[in-house]
C-alpha cells in the first residue's frame, strides 16, 4: 500500500481516497505516522470559500496577483465549490445581515475546516466598533484559527497568516 501511495502516477488518487473516505478509519487503526501524511496533504490544498464580506477582499484579490502570487504556497486557489473547500477567509466586516449567512456557509463545508479572520473588522469590529449593524468580531459566530490584523492587511500579512495556519495544521491530529 505504501508503495502505491508513493507511486507518482497514482498518488493524487490515493491521497484523495485516504483523506476523504478511509482517512478516519485508517488513522484510528494505524496511528501517528499517518497523521503526518494526512496533514501534509491538507496543508497544500487550502482552498477558500468564495465569500467576500467587505473591503478586505480587495487585498485578498491582490494577494493572488502576480506580484504576491500566493498560490505558490499551495493556498488560496480562488475557485471551487463550497463542498470542496476547507478554508474560509472572513474578509472584513461582518454585518448583522451577513452573520447568519456566514454561519450557514460554514456549516455546509465538510470537515476539516479552518477559519482565518482577516482584518481589524473581523477581529474586533475595527473602525466600526460603534456601528449599529456590525458584529464586534466574528469569534462569536465561528471558531477562528488565525487572526490576520491590519486595515486592510497587506498581502504579505495575509500570506504569513496562511503559512501560520499551515504550521498549525502540521501539528494537529490527523483526524
Amino acid at each position, binding site marked *: 500500500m505504501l508503495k502505491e501511495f508513493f507511486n507518482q502516477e497514482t498518488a493524487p488518487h490515493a491521497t484523495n481516497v485516504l483523506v476523504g473516505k478511509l482517512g478516519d478509519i485508517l488513522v484510528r487503526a494505524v496511528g501517528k505516522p499517518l497523521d503526518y501524511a494526512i496533514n501534509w496533504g491538507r496543508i497544500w490544498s487550502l482552498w477558500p470559500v468564495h465569500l467576500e464580506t467587505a473591503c478586505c477582499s480587495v487585498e485578498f484579490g491582490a494577494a493572488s496577483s502576480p506580484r504576491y502570487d500566493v498560490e505558490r504556497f499551495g493556498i488560496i486557489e480562488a475557485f471551487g465549490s463550497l463542498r470542496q473547500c476547507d478554508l474560509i477567509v472572513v474578509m472584513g466586516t461582518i454585518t448583522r445581515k451577513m452573520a447568519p449567512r456566514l454561519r450557514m456557509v460554514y456549516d455546509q463545508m465538510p470537515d476539516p475546516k479552518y477559519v482565518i479572520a482577516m482584518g481589524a473588522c473581523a477581529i474586533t469590529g475595527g473602525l466600526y466598533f*460603534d456601528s449599529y449593524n456590525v458584529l464586534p468580531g466574528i469569534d462569536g459566530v465561528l471558531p477562528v484559527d488565525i487572526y490576520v490584523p491590519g486595515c486592510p492587511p497587506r498581502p504579505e500579512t495575509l500570506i504569513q497568516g496562511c503559512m501560520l495556519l499551515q504550521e498549525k495544521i502540521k501539528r494537529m491530529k490527523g483526524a
Partner: protein
Amino acid sequence: MSSENEKDGQPSGTAESSEDVKSLSKDEAKKFYEEKGIDFSPDAPVKPKPIPQFEKSISDKIASKFSSKVTVDYVRNGRIRVSTKKEDILDVAHFIRDELGYDHAESVSGVDYPDSKEIEVVYHLGSYTDEKLANQVLTLATRVPREEIPTPGKDSSRMTSLREVFYSVEFHERECFEMFGVYFEGHPDNRRLLLPEDWADIPPFRKDFKIKGR
C-alpha cells in the same frame, strides 16, 4: 480632544469632548491655544456672495409660478434650494421636470429634526439633457411630521412618492423609508433594502437612535 480621553481609558465621544471645550472659559481656552501656538481668532464674518444670475432666473421661475407655496432658501453658484409643503411637492416636481428640464434625482436624503418634530426629505435633482443645467443641482426639500414612537408605514410620517415624476428615486426612497420611517405613498415597492430582515428597532438614522457607547 478625543485622544486625551482615550488615554484616560474612557470611551471617547466627540459629544462629550466638545462639552469639555465649553467648560473652559473663553479666556482660558484662548490662553491654552496660544501657548501651543495655535491660531484662535474668531471665525471671520462671512461675506455675502453675489447672487449668480442664471440660478436666480431659475429660482424666479419657480417662485413666480407657485408664489406662496414654495420658499427659495438659497441661490448659490450651481445650487438652488427650494422647500415646499408636502401636499404641493408633486406639482412642484412636475413643474421642475417639464418646464425647467431637470430629469433625474441624484439622491434622496432624510434629515431628522426632533426639536421641531419634523423629518425633512431632501431631493437633489440634476439634468443630463439640458446642457445649461449640467452644473446645476436643485435641492427640493419638504417636511413631514415626525412621531415620537415610530411605527414605520402606519403613522403620519408619510408623503407622496415622486417616483412617477422622477423614476430614478425608486431605490433612494426605499432607503429613506427604512432609515427614517417616512412612508412614500404611491411607491410600488416600499420594502426593506439595506437593513437585516429581522431589524426590529426604530429606524436607525433618527436622532433618538443612539449607537453603541455614544
